[in-house]
């Protein structure tokens, strides 16, 4: 069993890294719209739990009005239905596997399986099913806990590697011993998810699966998100270059770590100016260095400038 997700003990409103990841995903889908895909007419299939935060954002910013939220936990289903914010969201009390088994929807779909738990053979099977069900023009994303499952916590590197090889089988082939250290485990998770996606779509000849996001983030526990679009060959390169332009830090075909920068409001003001100035020797940049910030943190902030949320206290 994975450690508790931050969602269960930390308000969604206070998960800046998660929010950055969501905003990136929105940007990706917005870019897909920019190259001509009718995103607002897509269906969204997600795992809204009882907050539906991704549903709210996707409706608000992209205009989708056909949505399905999967809730596999029968104990949570009533709360999920109670908290469902829009009438056009259909809450279904089923797992991803069951849903994919019978879903015959023919219009384009964005699927985001935002699992709460850690890596498991079932998640790999869900991705394989996505490879069969996904239509040209669809998007698919998966998020899982990036740390070692609890069963592995007491084991040494050799036993962890053995577990991954035995449980994850063919998609574990690129994992090396160093990836099994707790601090590096998100790398192992990323390798499994990436291999699963590549393999799921490898035999398809009607389109190309283009990876668009491969990120690790952590508000208290590490999470990994991997996904992309299954698009026509010509669209794949157009979409990739569009996203490379708006989010160049995602351009490299490897795991990007969303840094958690714990900044005060005053610091953020200085960061905002520092990273938007052309000069690498601006007074703001020098000030940040004097305050002890590293160049890598300034670079990370520059990447995330548009995505890191700003929280304020208010009275509703």
């Amino acid at each position, binding site marked *: 069993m994975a450690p508790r997700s931050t969602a269960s003990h930390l308000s969604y409103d206070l998960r800046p890294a998660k929010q950055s990841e969501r905003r990136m995903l929105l940007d990706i889908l917005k870019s897909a719209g920019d190259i001509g895909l009718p995103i607002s007419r897509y269906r969204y299939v997600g795992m809204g739990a009882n907050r539906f935060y991704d549903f709210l954002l996707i409706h608000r910013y992209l205009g989708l009005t056909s949505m399905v939220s999967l809730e596999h936990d029968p104990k949570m289903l009533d709360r999920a239905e109670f908290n469902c914010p829009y009438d056009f969201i259909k809450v279904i009390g089923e797992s991803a596997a069951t849903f994919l088994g019978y879903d015959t929807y023919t219009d384009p779909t964005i699927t985001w399986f935002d699992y709460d738990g850690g890596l498991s053979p079932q998640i790999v099977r869900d991705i394989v099913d996505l490879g069969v069900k996904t239509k040209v023009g669809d998007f698919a994303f998966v998020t899982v806990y990036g740390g070692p499952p609890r069963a592995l916590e007491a084991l040494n590197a*050799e036993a962890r590697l053995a577990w991954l090889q035995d449980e994850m089988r063919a998609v574990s*082939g690129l994992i090396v011993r160093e990836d099994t250290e707790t601090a590096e485990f998100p790398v192992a998770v990323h390798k499994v998810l990436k291999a699963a996606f*590549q393999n799921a779509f490898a035999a398809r000849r009607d389109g190309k699966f283009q990876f668009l996001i491969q990120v690790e983030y952590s508000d208290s526990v590490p999470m990994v998100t991997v996904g992309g679009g299954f698009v026509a060959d010509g669209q794949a390169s157009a979409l990739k270059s569009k996203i490379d332009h708006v989010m160049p830090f995602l351009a490299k075909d490897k795991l990007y770590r969303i840094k958690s920068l714990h900044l005060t409001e005053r610091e953020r003001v200085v960061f905002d100016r520092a990273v938007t100035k052309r000069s690498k020797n601006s007074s703001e940049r020098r000030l940040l260095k004097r305050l002890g910030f590293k160049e890598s943190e300034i670079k990370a902030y520059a990447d995330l400038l548009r995505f890191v949320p700003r929280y304020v206290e208010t009275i509703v």
Partner: protein
Amino acid sequence: MPDRIMADASPEKRLFISLLTRDIPLVAAFLDLIDNSVNAAVEPHAGRLKTASDYIQTFQDPELVPEVEISISISDNKVIIKDNAGGISAGTAAEHVFKFGRSEEEESVEDRLSVYGIGLKRALFKLGNKIRMQSDHVEGGFDLDLDVAKWAKIKTQPWNFPITTREMVAVGKTGTTITISDLYDDVKRRINDGIFEGELREAIARTYAYYLAKFVRINVGGTFVEGDSLEVGSNVASDDFVSGRVTCAITAGIGQSVGGKFRERSSGWFVFCNGRGVVSADKTQLTGWGSGLGLPLFQPKHRPFLGTVFFVSERADLLPWTTTKSGINEDSAVWQEAKRHMATVGRLVVSFLDSRYTDEGTEIASKDVQEAAGERVSAITAAVVTKRTFELPKRPAPTTVRVQYDAKVSDVKRVEQYLRRPGMGAAEVGRHTFHFFLKNEVGE
């Protein structure tokens, strides 16, 4: 008088290429390319690798460390394999390397992994249309640039590949680089399927476990592959035999658990030919399981079993491997003989594992299996060429025995009522009445 004319029986290149490449999986084709480099790396040591015993002693030589590096780079439309071994001389290239098949005169006592003279060409043809090979050798190397599609259209006999010579180089500057580009569509798809590179790494770790320890380092995409550390307990049974010019060492024992579990991939028989892994973790009739003549049908309780079979010959073609070197020629006489020895060597270990489970339940705890295995050693080190017998662990005489008998349900209920403990259950009734008799009739 009828005319005597010669009917054309010459092979068509296109058919030849198709037949040659159809039955070899892509991973095996890569291994064929690696064989070429490993063979070159081992060549200087061939004199000390003549028998199974030689291989095992060489493996234990602490002075011997890998000197040759093989690197494999796989991208969307190109495969490059490069080594810094001794290279191939222009003379060898002109006369032997590109010839399809080997004649008897070509037998080399230094070749360990080159068997039929087909692997390299088959692998090249399997991957792509454009082949560039460059080799530097102390006597002068060669360059080859081949467009397979164009070559296939040339009808002239005999078949040949145009090569150009290269200058002599100093020792330490030798090596071979093979670049295959214009990859075939199926190959491109396969190498981008997300699991191919992992499968290749695993196959390398398994196949070259012996060579990775002492002769070569292999990296795929910049990351070095660690050889499979096949480990077994030091309490093993072993045997050896000589069949013509082939020697064979067989060992069976108990593998090592990882995280408290005996792994499927480390269980069964492992067969090596001249140090190259040919069969891994086999639990089928191929290695005698469930054939009725050897070991019983493999069951989960046999998971701790680990056996190695080490064939060695200076004449690689006498070894019982198939042309792809990823299987066994089951009809080979030396294999048939080995199977009989394997059954004898394996039987004691299997009997011990079988004895864990009786009608009374599990008799030997998992940790006792590990204790019976003995100290952890490399399976190759354990394959000492001296006959040994698996020592069955001495088990302490049991101090308890299960007592079972049938009783009428109504009688059991009566006892429960008498004891004023309704629902205590038949087992508890049995224990209570037994202790009552022991205490009151026998006396404790």
